[in-house]
């Protein structure tokens, strides 16, 4: 009676190929990645069929949260530095060099000028705690009044970087008067063209936009 002898196979697998794949993917993700920017508030933008992609650089982002608080930011560290330098001297905020650097490296700003110094002087942990109580940048429908600080931000930012594209990211629940403050301020700054950040949704069938996109013949 001969037992059929199963040949013993080694259970070791050659990992080299797998390692190659893993690192290839890793390299891809590392190069393709762009970290999510820190956002001070959660904003759920309304949906739209518009497919215009936000530009890569030179963006001014005005965020409006559901309660109408306004946050302001621009991209590019160097421009942010220029912006805060200019703002500090124009509004005589007496910001120290360290505080200016904190702004340049930070994210969206949602404080009135009066609280700017104390916020930027705080440690990152303290800043986190303060973020929750951020009051937003004061704005108004009229441009030439001192309480419209958003107007000042926009004005200076546009001087430091004239190429800025203006994007507004507002929550769907923002009431119209709050949103109007932003657009009226922009109008006051002679900005009549801007982008609203929206979520993508499908074009409804049978409409003109659908026909233009897919043609009439498709189902």
């Amino acid at each position, binding site marked *: 009676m001969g037992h059929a002898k199963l040949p013993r196979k080694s259970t070791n697998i050659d990992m080299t190929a797998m390692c190659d794949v893993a690192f290839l993917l890793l390299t891809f993700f590392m190069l393709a990645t762009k970290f999510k920017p820190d956002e001070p508030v959660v904003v759920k933008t309304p949906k739209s069929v518009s497919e215009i992609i936000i530009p890569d650089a030179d963006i001014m982002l005005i965020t409006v949260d559901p309660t109408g608080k306004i946050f302001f930011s621009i991209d590019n560290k160097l421009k942010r530095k220029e912006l805060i330098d200019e703002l500090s001297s124009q509004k005589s905020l007496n910001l120290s060099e360290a505080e200016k650097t904190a702004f340049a490296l930070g994210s969206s700003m949602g404080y009135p000028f009066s609280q700017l110094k104390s916020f930027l002087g705080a440690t990152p942990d303290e800043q986190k705690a303060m973020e929750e109580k951020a009051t937003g940048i004061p704005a108004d429908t009229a441009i030439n009044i001192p309480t419209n600080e958003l107007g000042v931000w926009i004005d200076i930012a546009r001087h430091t970087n004239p190429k800025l594209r203006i994007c507004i990211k507002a929550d769907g629940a923002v009431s119209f008067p709050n949103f109007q403050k932003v657009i009226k301020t922009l109008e006051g700054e002679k900005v*009549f*063209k801007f982008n609203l950040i929206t979520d993508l949704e499908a074009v409804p069938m049978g409409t003109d936009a659908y026909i233009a996109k897919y043609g009439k013949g498709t189902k």
Partner: protein
Amino acid sequence: MAELDTSSGGGHKKGPGVKKGKKLSTRIDLTPMVDLGFLLITFFMYTTTMQKPKTMEINMPYKDDIIKPEDQNKVKNSVALTVLLSKNHRIYYYEGIGDDPTKPPELKSTQYDTKNNVDAELRKEIISKKSKVADMKHRGELTAKDEITVLIKPDSTSSYSDLVYLLDEMIINDVKTYAIIDITEVDRDFIKATEEANPGK
């Protein structure tokens, strides 16, 4: 086999007098390296934002103190459709610009369905208005330059999502000329009158 084999095939004869060093295995276990690789991949996959946000471009009417009111273009009554945005996603609309106090326009109202992001009645109205304008152009009542114009007037009780919805509807229905305008007292009165006439709604 989970190793990298870098040892040479062996069998090379060394010359006489060359001492044979003890051959150490140069195989490395790659498993931890693969683990690390995938860990990092997972991290980058979670933190990455692949899809860039989409935007909608709007152009506001140019406003300047230099431009006198009489130089501004006036929208023709026959091409205009006025849409009033009111509270709780209620939308009122009427044809024309509603500037004739002797003939108050007939307001119709619809409810914008926030869940499905659609308002079929309003869409129908826009499409029918479009074809009306096209007909009038055919008959020569309007010049070729005239286009349907939608005037969007958000009331202070409306929300931003209503406005975006309306702007989106303009893209969907291929309406080229539209404007966001401040609501007037007259329009507010229209809404009030319609609300009072239909207390159930």
